[in-house]
């Protein structure tokens, strides 16, 4: 389970994140939805520990990322926005590198890599160098790398950017399977349809603040038309007029 408590971050004169609270529960997919520049990436970077919050805290299974980074980050798999893989390494070697850095080794690690190759259907190109991989292939390798230590919690920053239809489809199936296995999945997106199709819980942020949250059904009830898109727009407007 991931819990963010009044998380805030400032860059110079810019308040990028101003007190975000959210919970991503086990066995649920939580979508962080917001327009470009709303503070989604900064929020997630505070969560996976590459930025330090000015205020508030990020808890992973109850462990504070700032206080116990090794234990907390050990229970998290994070896939940053536009994450790249090593072009001169094969798919397997890319995954193995992160596995070793996570402290795995030997037959345990190899078995885990085999399982991920099967789960993500990368068998065909698992031993090819990543140099010429398509965007979809690269994302799968990056995901396998993120999942190598079988983390209970998963954070994905705009993972489906630039994917074609079949790749998006297989990516969604994977996320659903991870949820059904009891993992907490938190991902960000600015694409309404994707969030609507996938998420159990939605958190809408704008201008560094949470402006609405709830299940898709709860959010739809807030507008007369009953459409999620209208609910999204209405939530954004409430902030700007307030």
């Amino acid at each position, binding site marked *: 389970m991931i819990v963010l408590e009044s998380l805030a971050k400032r860059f110079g004169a810019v308040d990028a994140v101003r007190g975000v609270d959210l919970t991503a529960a086990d066995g649920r997919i939580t979508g962080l939805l917001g327009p470009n520049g709303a503070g989604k990436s900064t929020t997630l970077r505070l969560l996976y*520990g*590459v930025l330090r919050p000015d205020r508030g805290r990020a808890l992973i299974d109850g462990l504070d990322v700032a206080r116990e980074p090794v234990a907390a980050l050990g229970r998290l798999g*994070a896939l940053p926005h536009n994450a*790249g893989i090593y072009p001169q390494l094969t798919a397997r070697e890319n995954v193995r*590198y992160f596995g070793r850095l996570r402290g795995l080794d030997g037959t345990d690690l190899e078995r885990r890599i085999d399982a991920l190759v099967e789960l993500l259907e990368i068998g065909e190109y698992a031993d090819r160098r990543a140099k010429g991989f398509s965007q979809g292939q690269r994302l799968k390798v990056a995901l396998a790398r993120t999942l190598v230590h079988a983390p209970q919690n998963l954070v994905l920053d705009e993972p489906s950017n630039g994917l074609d239809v079949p790749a998006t489809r297989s990516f969604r199936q994977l996320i659903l399977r991870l949820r059904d296995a009891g993992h907490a999945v938190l991902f960000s997106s600015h694409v309404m349809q994707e969030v609507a199709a996938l998420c159990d819980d939605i958190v809408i942020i704008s201008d560094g603040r949470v402006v609405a949250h709830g299940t898709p059904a709860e959010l739809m009830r807030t507008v007369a038309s009953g459409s999620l898109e209208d609910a999204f727009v209405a939530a954004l407007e409430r902030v700007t007029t307030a």
Partner: protein
Amino acid sequence: MRALCTVLLKEVVENARDRRTVVSALLLGPLGAPLLFTVLMNVTLERERQGLEAPLELAIAGGSHAPNLVAFLRGEGVEVREFQGDADAAARAVRARERRLVLVIPADHGARLRSGLPAAVQLYADSSDTSAAGERVRAESLLRSYASQIATWRLAARGLSPALVRPLIVDEVDLSTPAGRAVTLLGMLSYFIVFATLIGGLYVAIDTTAGERERGSLEPLLTLPVARRELVLGKILATSAWMIVSLVLTVAAFAVSLRFVRLDTLGMAANFGPRVALATIGVMLPFVLLGAALMTLVASFTRSYREAQSWLTALLLIPTVPIMFAAVYQVPTRLALMWIPSLSQHLLISSLLKAEPLAPSSVLVSAASTLAFGALIAALATRCYRREQILG
């Protein structure tokens, strides 16, 4: 330590598959530097040898005014060429580099000699033409010995001992060893070694820092619960590993190629056997760590692969500064200078080439100081990776 080794191994292997790294570490430095150096040395030596052995060619204007002088020069093996024209024509010919030297003998030469007056001759030469410097010196010394021969005869004709006008005789006793003489020429060698060593790690340093960020693999790496210190040191050591490969190959290539430099034609010897080669590698090892840390630090601050490339290319010039300084001022190997990285390596390698014994204190100060600088810069690089701005 475990993460450090994982990073080190991965960066070494990954870069072995990168053409730029392999070409620069295994070919450019180790082959290019000795090749360039050998060609340069051979050209220099050939020019010096020719200057000493080839017969001196001297154009003379108005040779008929001094038949004895011309006969004397011919007797000394000078190939005398008749020059048609006056002093102005001679000056023009030298300026236009048609002739290197022209000796002009005025019409009143014979008359002045006969009456015991100083008889002037003009030697036209361009002192900025370094290729003619040897010939000019030889011509001057021949003319001087002709003059002293006449003086001797004049004194003898008057019943005086020629020894009277030679109150002082300077005997130069050259104590330099053949290897020592070669050092002025071999002075550049240490810089070629420093250069090739840095080149070997250049692309690894870029790939592991600016390259990693440009590919977008840095942020995922930083989400891992691994100490930044281990990541950075792993990267620095991977760069060092490639630099050592380049260093060893370069020194080996020098040991082989110096056999083809004909130093013996000038009575010099290149003292670069296996023992000196090994000692050279040993002297350079602390510098490898410093160079790797410095390149990693600088490349970490750049925003892109290309920017890193131009910064690091400029960085390659920094170690030349103390070496140039030492060459210009002929700095001797002194303990007080051993704390300056790159200068101390240059001086120690020069001593090895001169077959001078290395003072243990010098070696120790050089290694300790260079390693200390390296550790300081590695610490700075680690700090740089702890900053949030490293994500770019």
